[in-house]
């Protein structure tokens, strides 16, 4: 029977919205703390400075990707091409990063520009061409992967300059550079979403595109902006990855977009758009990272790890829906 329409709106009326919102706000933090406490009890090495820094460095790439895709998802879109953009920008940047060639600035610019360009193409086809984001970015996923293989002739691009390798491997004030970059991205993204007009419009477009348009918002340019931010950050992540493994790998980053989307969803952002927070995504990425790390520390095989990770992703979202 078609009585769906009789059901109360998304949030049932007999729940106090204030309480629901409170739980939504903190539930994910509580879950994260619980996991940390459990791992602290179960393993001696979890709560050590060395391990914490390692976890943070490990999640910084997924974290940067997840923050980018948070913009897209809040605006009601999706981006599946991230992993391939990571590979393409990494390979391209690495090609300009051999010692004694172009210095540091050119490879960085190339990597970022590739991300921005792909984001622009994605965004334009989605807005002007009115093709579903899923399809466009699915196509872009294989195109960018293909480009990465073509550019590198299918071979890893190695022999990179020390200055380039410093991005992924170096430290500043004893903090690894990837963590600092991740921190900067968190800060800037949070400010954009909360304190700028553009950020507010991203929520409005995802919440109700028609109303956003009728309120005088240029919906297409907001969507374009989110895809550019998203792919641009994927470009940055590609540079960090290539630098960390000191190689531009055309096969790197496979399925990275899925980990990024998982972090966003665990962080409480709805895939239907209109809501979500950067801090949620960060905690989502932390949860994934801590679980990976914890399962390693517990000597659980990487095969079983995948099962557990999947269960936790679905479980986290299930809990979120229940509340």
């Amino acid at each position, binding site marked *: *029977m*078609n*009585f*769906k*329409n*009789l*059901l*109360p*709106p*998304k*949030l049932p*009326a*007999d*729940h*106090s*919205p*204030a309480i629901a919102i409170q739980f939504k706000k903190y539930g994910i933090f509580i879950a994260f703390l619980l996991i940390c406490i459990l791992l602290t009890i179960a393993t001696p090495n979890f709560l050590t400075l060395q391990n914490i820094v390692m976890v943070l460095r490990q999640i910084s790439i997924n974290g940067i990707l997840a923050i980018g895709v948070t913009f897209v998802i809040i605006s009601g879109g999706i981006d599946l091409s991230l992993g391939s953009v990571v590979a393409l920008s990494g390979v391209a940047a690495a090609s300009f990063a051999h010692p004694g060639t172009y210095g540091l600035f050119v490879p960085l610019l190339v990597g970022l520009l590739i991300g921005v360009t792909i984001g622009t193409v994605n965004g334009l086809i989605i807005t002007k061409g009115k093709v579903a984001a899923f399809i466009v970015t699915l196509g872009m996923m294989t195109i960018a992967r293909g480009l990465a293989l073509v550019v590198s002739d299918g071979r890893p691009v190695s022999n990179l300059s020390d200055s380039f390798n410093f991005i992924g491997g170096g430290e500043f004030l004893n903090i690894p550079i990837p963590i600092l970059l991740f921190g900067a991205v968190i800060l800037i993204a949070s*400010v954009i979403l*909360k*304190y*700028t*007009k553009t950020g*507010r419009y991203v*929520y*409005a477009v995802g*919440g*109700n595109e*028609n*109303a*956003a*348009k*009728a*309120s*005088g*918002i*240029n919906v297409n340019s907001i969507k374009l902006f989110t895809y550019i931010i998203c792919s641009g950050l994927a470009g940055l992540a590609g540079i960090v990855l290539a630098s960390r493994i000191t190689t531009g790998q055309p096969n790197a980053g496979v399925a990275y977009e899925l980990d990024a989307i998982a972090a966003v969803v665990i962080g409480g952002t709805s895939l239907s758009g*209109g*809501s979500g927070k950067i801090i949620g995504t960060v905690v989502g990425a932390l949860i994934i990272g801590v679980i990976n790390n914890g399962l390693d520390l517990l000597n659980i095989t990487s095969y079983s790890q995948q099962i557990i990770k999947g269960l936790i992703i679905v479980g986290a979202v299930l809990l979120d829906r229940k509340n």
Partner: protein
Amino acid sequence: MNQPWLLKAENISKSFPGVKALDKVNLTIEGGKVHTIIGENGAGKSTLMKILMGILLPDEGEILYKGVKVKLMSVQEAIKTGISMIHQELLPFPELSIAENIFMGNEPTSRIPGWINKREMNKNAALLMNKLGAKVDVTRAMKELSIAEMQMVEIAKAISNQSEVIIMDEPTSALSNREIAILFSIIEELKQQGIAIIYISHKMDEIFKISDTITVMRDGKHITTCAINAIDQKKLISLIVGREINSIFDKKENTPGEVILSVTELTGEKFKDINFNLRRGEILGIAGLMGSGRTEIVNSIYGLEKIVKGDIFINGKKVKIRSPKDAIKNSIGLVSEDRKKYGLVLGSSVKHNISLSSLEKCKNGLFLNLKEENEIANAQINKLNIKTSSSDQLANYLSGGNQQKIVIAKVLLNDADIIIFDEPTRGIDIGAKSEIYKLMTQLATEGKALIVISSELPEILGLSDRILIIREGEIKAELSQAEATQELIMKHAMA
């Protein structure tokens, strides 16, 4: 039937955190009668209907159906018991056929298990639709139908479920007068067959036309139930609001100023050669049946719809409006007829909805000044008397009237000089209605220019200084406030 009544709700109470939505409410529904339930938004009508449909469980009280106590735990059980509901916002399966929609969940099966007997389904569907006087091809897809036809399908579905109590929630809100007449004749037909109709509406004229019995609810309480001919409109309104309302229209003589908006030979896909002037301080009414092109005209002025030909002048200067953004720049505001689609971001807060079009006003350099935004939003909440627990409450949780006030607040914040109100009071209770009317008259007095579109003729007549009547996409008549009557408007609108 042994009992004179079909459905009885006794001492029904239901509380939500902080509110007693229903307080020992009694309701007796008799077969073959139209029982109207009326009350302001928040009076408890929809909670009561949700309980009758098995969507909510009462905290206290009993429901009896044909003398037997029933416990309605789900919509399916309510339907099995014999209660169906035609919801205000129809959400059928758009890609499926009429027949498939009617028999959704109840398909005639063939000998092979799991297979649908399509021939029988189509035959029965055609029979049902014929019975309702709708001669349509039942294999047509639902999405091709008008709202009136979809409603017919929903009624057919209720009949096919052998429902004896049919709840109709504001069934006429999206219908033209001609379609309303057809609906009413169907309701008469259903009454003849002993079916009870629970009718929910805010429209006074149709309530007096169609009802046999009326129940008034206020603040979750049952106020009175009586035969319709035992009450008049004035008395009814005073029972609904709990106070006497002398006149809900506060119409003053306006002295319109200079022309602020004029359109010449404006032509779009659904209208052509529209010419009119709008003056400061004037309220221009646009009347016409649903589908006459009236909404398309104002939408095109607001940049929501394409203009094929013709010009728009603001303060005598020709302007190009390609998007709502352009319209807002030219100080035009629109309160759309569809506030859920074009008016609100329901999942966002009241505050963010109000400020959405005017974030420029709460900016310090690159960044938003959230404190200032909060102040601006709260000022609007107070000014328009928007009832909300806080400015951070999600728009979704507010009643229709308060949601509409959010949309109006947003438009007012833009400093629009020309404000278009398309069906400004659809689905809104009478208290909020009169507040919105007052606001509109006040805006005109302040020198704003208003356009109002409404299907409710008393509204158009009560507000407008001048009325344009649209039929088939053209202006067929222009009436001054003095000469306009409901009959005259309908004559031009229907012809």
